[in-house]
C-alpha cells in the first residue's frame, strides 16, 4: 500500500529519475551513443560460450544485452535512469535507512551515474562498454537479497536459504554475490540473527568459491570473478568510482544503527546527503567540451552529416587534431576543402591534416577519403587492440562491399544481424550485397567514396596520414584532385604543388589559398607562370608580399610574438599557415 508519508520520498526519486535522464540524454547523450557503438553483443553460441563460462558471466551477458538499448539514446537514458532509481529504492529498502538519512540512499546511484558522466577519453581505449550496466544490475541484485532479507528475514527458512543462494550465485554474479552476502551479514549482525551461519557462508564464499569456480570450473585466475567486478574499465579513475559505488552499499547498510545518535536533525543529514551527491557528480563528471565535440563529430561523420560536422567544428574556438580531421573530411565532402581549409587558425593543430591510423583508430576518415584497404586495416588493428565493436564490424562490412568482397561482407553482416537494434543497417547492407555496385547509385555517400578509390597501387610500410597517402600516387581519380592539392599545401610541398596545379585546377574557380601558394612558390624559385596559371591577382600578390615584409620585422627568437601579432590580420590566409603551422618545424628553425 502506498503510504502518504512516503510521498516526499517518491517525489525525490522522481526528481532523481528526471535529472538522471536529462543528464544522460541531453548532456552525455554522445557518450551513451558511443558506448553502444563501441559495444558488442551477439546471440550466437560462440559469443555465449565466450562470455558465460566465467564467474560473473551471466551478469556480463545481461549487461551487454542491455547495452544494446543504448542504440536509442532516449530509451537508453530512460533505462539507465530507471535502473539508478531502482538502486536508490533498493538502498532505502535493503539498507533500512531511517528517514533522516533518506538523502544518502541516492549516493550509490549518483556514483553509478558518474560511471557514465565520468567517462572521458577512456571511451577510445579498451573498455567493456557495459561495465556500468553490469555494476548497476549487480547492485540491484545484491540489494534484492537485502530487501528480501529485510522483508521476510523473520521466516527461518528464508534467512537460512538466502545466504546460501547468494553464495551459490557466485558463478553467475561474480563479486556481486559477495556483495549480497555482505549486506545479508550486516543485516543479520544488526538483528543478531544467524550471525555465525552467515559469517561462515561468507568466509566460504570469499575464500573457497573463487577457487572452486574461477580456478577449477572455469580455468581462470583465482578470484577473477571478484576482481573483474570492480576492474572491468580500463581507467583507474573509473575503477575507483566503481569501487566507491559498490562499497557505499555495505557502508550505508551499516549506517542504519547510528541514525538516532549521530544524525539528530533530519534537515542537516538530508542536506549533507544531497550536497555529497552533488559534489560527487560534479567532481567526477567529465566536462571537456572538445571531447564532446569530437564524439559528436565522429557520430555525424559516420552518418555523413557533413554540414553538421562543420557546425560542430565552427563552435569550437580552437580545433584539436581529431576535430580538424573530421573538419577536413567534412569540407572535402561539401566541396569546400580548398576554400575553407585555411580559413581557421590551424597553427595549434598538430602535424597531419588528418590523424594517422595509430592516433585514434578512426577508420571513418580513411573510408571517406577513399582508402578502403587502409580503413579496413585501421578497423582490424583497432579491434585487435581495443576489442570488437558494432561500429568496426559495420565499417568492415561496408569496406568489404565497396571492395567487391561480398562473402566477407556477409560474414560481418551476419554478426550485425545478431543484434535486433541494427536491423535497418543490416537491411541496407544486405541490399547492397545483393544488388552489388548498382546499389551505389542509391547511396551518394558510398558512391563518393567509390569514386575516390585509388586507381593505382601503392605500398605503405608504416603509419601515415591521409594527406601523405594522397601525395604518394602518380595518378589519382578526379574526385581526389582537390584533396591532393590541399595535401600539397598542408605538407608545404611546393614542388609537388606546382606540378599538380595544372591538372587539379578549374579555371575561374581558383581558391585564395592556391593563389597565395602560387605566389609563395614563385618566391621560392618556381616558374612565375604558376601565378598566371593560378590566376593570381594583384591584391593577393600584395597581401603575400606584405605578410613576408611584416614577418621580417621580427627577430629569430620572436617566433611566438610574430605568430600572435600577425594572427588578427593574416590568421585566415595560407601564407600565415605556411609559416606558423604547427607542423612547420623547418621554418621555425630558420
Amino acid at each position, binding site marked *: 500500500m502506498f503510504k502518504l508519508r512516503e510521498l516526499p520520498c517518491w517525489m525525490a526519486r522522481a526528481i532523481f529519475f528526471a535529472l538522471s535522464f536529462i543528464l544522460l540524454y541531453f548532456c552525455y547523450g554522445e557518450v551513451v551513443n558511443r558506448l553502444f557503438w563501441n559495444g558488442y553483443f551477439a546471440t550466437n553460441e560462440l559469443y555465449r560460450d565466450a562470455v558465460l563460462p566465467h564467474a560473473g558471466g551471466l551478469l556480463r551477458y545481461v549487461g551487454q544485452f542491455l547495452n544494446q538499448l543504448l542504440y536509442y539514446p532516449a530509451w537508453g537514458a530512460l533505462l539507465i535512469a530507471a535502473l539508478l532509481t531502482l538502486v536508490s529504492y533498493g538502498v532505502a529498502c535493503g539498507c533500512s535507512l531511517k528517514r533522516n538519512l533518506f538523502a544518502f540512499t541516492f549516493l550509490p546511484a549518483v556514483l553509478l551515474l558518474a560511471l557514465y558522466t565520468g567517462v572521458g577519453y577512456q571511451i577510445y581505449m579498451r573498455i567493456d562498454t557495459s561495465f556500468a550496466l553490469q555494476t548497476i544490475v549487480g547492485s540491484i541484485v545484491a540489494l534484492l537479497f537485502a530487501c528480501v532479507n529485510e522483508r521476510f528475514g523473520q521466516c527461518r527458512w528464508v534467512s537460512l536459504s538466502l545466504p546460501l543462494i547468494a553464495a551459490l550465485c557466485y558463478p553467475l554474479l561474480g563479486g556481486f554475490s559477495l556483495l549480497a552476502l555482505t549486506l545479508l551479514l550486516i543485516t543479520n549482525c544488526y538483528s543478531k540473527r544467524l550471525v555465525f551461519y552467515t559469517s561462515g557462508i561468507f568466509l566460504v564464499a570469499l575464500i573457497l568459491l573463487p577457487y572452486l569456480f574461477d580456478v577449477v570450473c572455469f580455468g581462470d585466475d583465482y578470484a577473477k570473478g571478484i576482481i573483474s567486478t570492480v576492474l572491468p574499465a580500463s581507467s*583507474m579513475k573509473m575503477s575507483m568510482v566503481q569501487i566507491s559505488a559498490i562499497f557505499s552499499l555495505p557502508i550505508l547498510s551499516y549506517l542504519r544503527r547510528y541514525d538516532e545518535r549521530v544524525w539528530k536533525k533530519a534537515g542537516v543529514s538530508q542536506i549533507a546527503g544531497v550536497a555529497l551527491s552533488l559534489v560527487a557528480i560534479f567532481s567526477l563528471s567529465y566536462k571537456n567540451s572538445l571531447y564532446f565535440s569530437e564524439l559528436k563529430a565522429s557520430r555525424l561523420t559516420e552518418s555523413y552529416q557533413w554540414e553538421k560536422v562543420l557546425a560542430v567544428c565552427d563552435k569550437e574556438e580552437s580545433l584539436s587534431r581529431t576535430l580538424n580531421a573530421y573538419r577536413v573530411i567534412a569540407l572535402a565532402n561539401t566541396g569546400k576543402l580548398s576554400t575553407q581549409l585555411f580559413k581557421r587558425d590551424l597553427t595549434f593543430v598538430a602535424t597531419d591534416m588528418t590523424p594517422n591510423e595509430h592516433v585514434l583508430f578512426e577508420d571513418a576518415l580513411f573510408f571517406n577519403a577513399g582508402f578502403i584497404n587502409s580503413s579496413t586495416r585501421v578497423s582490424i588493428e583497432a579491434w585487435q587492440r581495443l576489442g570488437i565493436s558494432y561500429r568496426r564490424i559495420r565499417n568492415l562490412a561496408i569496406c568489404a562491399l565497396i571492395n567487391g568482397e561480398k562473402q566477407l561482407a556477409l*560474414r560481418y553482416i551476419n554478426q550485425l544481424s545478431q543484434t535486433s537494434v541494427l536491423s535497418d543497417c543490416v537491411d541496407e547492407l544486405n541490399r547492397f550485397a545483393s544488388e552489388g555496385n548498382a546499389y551505389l547509385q542509391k547511396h551518394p555517400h558510398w558512391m563518393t567514396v567509390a569514386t575516390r578509390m585509388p586507381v593505382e597501387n601503392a*605500398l605503405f610500410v608504416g603509419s601515415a596520414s591521409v594527406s601523405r597517402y594522397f601525395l604518394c600516387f602518380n595518378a589519382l581519380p578526379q574526385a581526389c584532385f582537390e584533396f591532393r592539392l590541399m595535401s600539397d599545401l598542408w605538407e608545404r610541398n611546393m614542388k609537388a604543388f606546382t606540378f599538380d596545379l595544372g591538372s587539379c585546377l578549374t579555371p575561374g574557380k581558383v581558391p585564395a589559398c592556391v593563389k597565395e601558394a602560387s605566389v609563395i612558390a614563385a618566391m621560392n624559385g618556381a616558374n612565375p607562370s604558376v601565378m598566371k596559371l593560378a590566376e593570381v591577382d594583384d591584391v593577393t600578390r600584395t597581401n603575400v608580399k606584405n605578410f613576408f615584409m611584416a614577418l621580417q620585422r621580427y627577430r629569430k627568437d620572436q617566433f611566438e610574438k610574430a605568430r600572435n601579432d600577425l594572427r588578427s590580420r593574416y590568421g585566415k590566409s595560407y601564407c600565415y599557415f605556411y609559416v606558423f603551422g604547427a607542423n612547420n618545424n623547418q621554418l621555425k628553425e630558420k
Partner: protein
Amino acid sequence: MMKILSRVIWLLLLLPACGTSLPKEAEEVDVEAQIYPDYRNVVIPANVAPLNFRVEQPLNGCVVRVSARNGEEILVEADGKGDVRFPLKKWKSFMVNHADDSLSVDLYVKDKSWMHYNSFSWVVKPDSIDPIMTCRLIEPSYRGHGALSLVSYNLEDNTSRVIAENEKLRHEPFPVNRQSCLNCHSQQRNGSGNSLFFYRGEHGGLVLTYNGKSRIINSRVGDMYASTTYPAWHPYLPLIAFSINAVGQTYPVSDPSKTEVIDDRSDMVLYDIEKDEISYITKTKNRLETFPCWSADGKFLYFAYSDSAALTTSVYQRLRYDLARISFDADSLSWGEPQVLTDFAKRALSANYPQPSPDGRFMLFAVSKYGCSPYRHADCDIYVMDMEQGTYRLAHEVDTPNASDYCRGWSRNGHWILISSRKDDGNYGRVYFSYCDETGHFSKPFQLPHEYPAHDLEFLKSYNAPEFAQVEPIMTPSEFYHLLDTSHVQPANYRGTMDIPVDANSGASVIR
C-alpha cells in the same frame, strides 16, 4: 567440469530426439540441400569427430539419416536453426563399424510439407587422421595483434583447448604490458610431445618443450640478424631447422591482398637441442632461403629458395622463389650441397611451403605469382610433385581457383593432408582435410568439424599456421605464464663465424 555440464545439457536437449523417425511421406526433390560446412560427397577418416552441419534453408523441421550399405543407420533431428549434431558415442561406434564403407546421407526437410533432397555420400576410410591439430587464432591480421592464442583441436571428438595465450599479459590500466606476439606452434612428428612455439618481445624467445620440460631460449645469437622464425623438427633427432627472416611488412593501398610480407634477408640455421647450440645451414648474402621442411627419413631438408634478394619493396612483385633441398648426414651432422628442384622463378612464378609426404613419394607446395606470403594471395595454388619422376601438377582436386590455399602438412600415415584456405571469403583462414590415395590424387576437402556447426561461419579469427600433431600438447596457459614468471631467457650457444667486426684488443664484437 564445464564439459560435463555442457554434455549433460546436451543430453537433456537431445532427449526429445530419442524418438526421431523419418517422415512417413516426403516429396522427392531433385535438388541438393545447401549445408554448411559443405560436407557433401567427401572422404572422411573413420576416427573423425562428428561432422555436424547446418542446413541452410528455411525449415520447420529437418531429419537427417546416415545409412550404411548393410542398412544400419543413424537418425538425427536438426534444431530450430537447422543445426544437425550427431551424438558423439553413437557416431564413433557407427564409424568404427563402417570404416571402409560408403555412407549415404539423406536430408528430409519440412517447409510446408516434407521434402527429401538428393542424398550425398560420405566415404569412410580406415586410415586414421592424426588426432590433433594445432594452430594460432588471430584476426586476419596486419602488423598489430591483440589477444592471441595457440589452440589444439582434437579431431576425434570436436573438443579444443588453449595451449598458450597472451591475454593475461595485458595489464591495463597498469603500465606494464607484456602482451607480445605468440606464433608458430610445431610438434615433433614422432609422438614424443616435443614441441615449440615463439613468444616474441622483450621477455620472450623460443618456448621449447623437450622431454616433458619447458624452457625459454633466446634463439637470436651470434651475428644472426633476426631471431629464428619458421621451424622444422627433425623427424626423430633432437634437431630443429629454422629459417631466420628479416621480415618487412607492407600494406598495399588498393591490392586485394591488403598486406604483403617481404623478406629482406633470410637464411637457415640448425638448433641442436641437446647441445643447446645454433649453427648456420645456409648463410648467403644475395639469396633467400626460407620455409624449411624435413623429409620423413630426415635425410633431406626442403626449403624455398630465391636469388632475387635485395629487391626493394617497390619491386616486390619480382621476388620469386623456387624449391630446393639440401642433404643431411645424421651421423656427422653435416650438410651436402643445395639442389634446386624447380624452375618456377624463370616462369615468373613463386613456389613456397614444400611439404614432402611421409613415404617420400609426393611433395605438396604452394605456387603464386610472386613473393613469400602466398597465404594472402588469391592466386596461390596447391601443386603436387611426384618425387620419383620429378614432375608436378596443379592439385586441382583440392585447389580453389581465385582463392589462397596451401598445404600445411601430412598426417603421419601419409593419407591425409591439411590445407589452410581462405576460399570462404578471401580473408579468414579456415582448415580443410583431404584424402590422398596411392596414386597421389586427392579427395574433395572437408572442413574442420566443430560441435557448433556454424562455428567457422561466425568465428571472427583466422586459423593461422595449422599443423597436425600426434599427441595433445603438454603446455597449458597457466604453465606458460608460470614459465614466463619463473624462468630466465637463456641464449643458445652459437657455433659459427661472426660477420660483424671484432674488437682487436678485447675480442668482443663491436656493438653499433
